[in-house]
């Protein structure tokens, strides 16, 4: 598979870069037998080997008789992805993060949830039912973290 070949090569490149970075680590003054670079180098070697195995996969698998592990069904992984929905979640999260501290937790969360539910809920009649959740969940979470757990969340504009 082309995707596996590209991924495999990327893993090899990562392994080589990591090996390089490990070798460039400053040695401790006291010469030890095993410095901070040895273990990372083992990992780097592993990455290079495994990346190569993945890239050369189909061929090697046939030669070595390597088995494909039995399929374990996982919910949600069937069928082609709904790309606009994925983009809506990722872009939404990025904007949410960017405005998290400026707008404050409660306000940014209400906006974020409203946008995501509007984007993902096909049945528009259901939007109205989501309103209490969109308003209550952020407020309850704020109270839980701020009052009960003593964790400060950003107050932003409402602060």
């Amino acid at each position, binding site marked *: 598979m082309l995707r596996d070949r590209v991924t495999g090569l990327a893993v090899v490149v990562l392994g080589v870069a990591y090996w390089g970075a490990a070798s460039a680590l400053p040695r401790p003054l006291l010469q030890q037998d095993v410095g901070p670079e040895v273990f990372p180098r083992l990992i780097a070697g592993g990455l290079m080997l495994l990346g190569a195995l993945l890239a050369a996969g189909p061929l090697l698998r046939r030669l070595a008789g390597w088995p494909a592990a039995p399929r*374990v069904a996982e919910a949600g992984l069937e069928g082609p992805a709904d790309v606009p929905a994925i983009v809506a979640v990722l872009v939404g999260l990025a904007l949410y993060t960017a405005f998290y501290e400026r707008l404050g937790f409660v306000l940014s969360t209400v906006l974020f949830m409203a946008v995501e539910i509007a984007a993902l809920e096909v049945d528009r009649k259901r939007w109205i039912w989501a309103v209490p959740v969109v308003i209550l969940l952020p407020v309850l979470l704020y109270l839980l973290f701020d009052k009960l757990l003593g964790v400060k969340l950003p107050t932003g504009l409402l602060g």
Partner: protein
Amino acid sequence: MESFASNVVTGFSIAATPANLGYAFIGCLVGTLIGVLPGIGSVTTVALLIPITFGMNPTAGLILMAGVYYGAMYGGSTTSILANIPGESSAVVTTLDGHPMAKQGRAGAALATAAIGSFVAGTLSTVGLMLLAPTLASVAIRFGPAEYFSLMLLGLTAVSALGGRSVVKALISMCLGLLLGTVGLDMGGFPRFNFGLVELYEGVDFIIPAIGLFALGEALDQAAVIRRSQLTHFDFRGRAWLTREEFRRSTAPWLRGSVLGFLVGVLPGAGATIASFFSYAMERRLSRHPEQFGKGAIEGVAGPEAANNASVGGAMVPLLTLGIPGSGTTAILLGAFMMFGLQPGPLLFQRNPDVIWALIASMYIGNAMLLVLNLPLIRLFVKLIDVRPAVLVAAVLVLSTVGVYATNGRTFDLWLTLGFGALGYFARRADFPAAPLILALVLERSMEENFRRATTLSDGSLTIFLTRPISAAILALCVLSLFSPYIQSWLLRRGNARPESGARTGT
């Protein structure tokens, strides 16, 4: 052995305080609710709980998280039986006979055999844990750094071999986890691989990839299918209970499933899912009516449901005694132990027996709570299957974000989580499992410490891992574990292909 008895008594006296009973209750309840909700697994829930338990005392936090873990194992069966949607991969097998039973109007019996089976299994496997853990701890205490290094490697290779569809991809995931683990201060106090970023000076907090890969990953998985998924409405009327005949037919599968599930759970890498598949195959082989399997055989629900719950107690054995988790969920529990400043392993039994025994006792109490809770409340839980998936996804995204932010109070972590979420989603689509990465990240520090201690003892030579007999034997098991998919698929094929001959050898 008299200290064993006093430990058990101490454990129960701590677990039975009103506050801890409350945490066990909340844990079981939340776990069951989550298990019932399709699409959110126990890994995600336990990961999301970590920031909340941060300020609690360790015993209470661990009791809460363990409750969620086995509560979710139980809850998954409800959705499998009624909606034919496994809430967890360990509940896939339950759909095979559970859903046909529901269609025949026997949903009550299926739910009841799952609930009672879970109780029997949870109780028996907790007893197994009580008996096996101290014994193993007393053996493990003689292990040196070479043995520990090899053991951790075994934990990693076993999870990689059993947890995914491709061993190579799982091992790549594992190496990435190790790589992430090396970011930050090394044991000599030198900063490594932090790109000069202050935020990475102390390394990547495991909660960030855990929430990113599991919680965000699952939310993205859901989002990918949400707009074209068929929504179905479910209802359950009647009573969840068994007739005398059904009870009689369930008893042996419960007991067999419990023993099998516990033993499989102890093995590294082989968790609840594999335990339930094995139990199903075994019940079909032993049955006098193998032709009923797949069409609503109660044994096909009773056995696997007992097995997947029993595997939780089994999985606690290597986690508590060796500090080696066997799955994504137990890896996160290990991270939680470390967050509380507790290092699981044989010394934990000497230093913090109160925490361990209280946790074990609470599992025992929690199982009884689940039984009392679940049979009467089942109609209430069923309503949850109707929760709108869009609302659920939005809520999971918010909970993930707030959890990560609460840990260190900086948006840098949120960006990192988002990166892991996106990576996790695309990686899962390409069949790279997340569990080996988290496991490797959590274990990296102690693995490298043991590696460096062992090689210092041998003046820098790597042969120490092969010349110490126990370490060499464990390394041989590592190699064997990488070939275990062969063995597993062979066993499953045998279980599926020869039901008739199985009937003759049956009890």
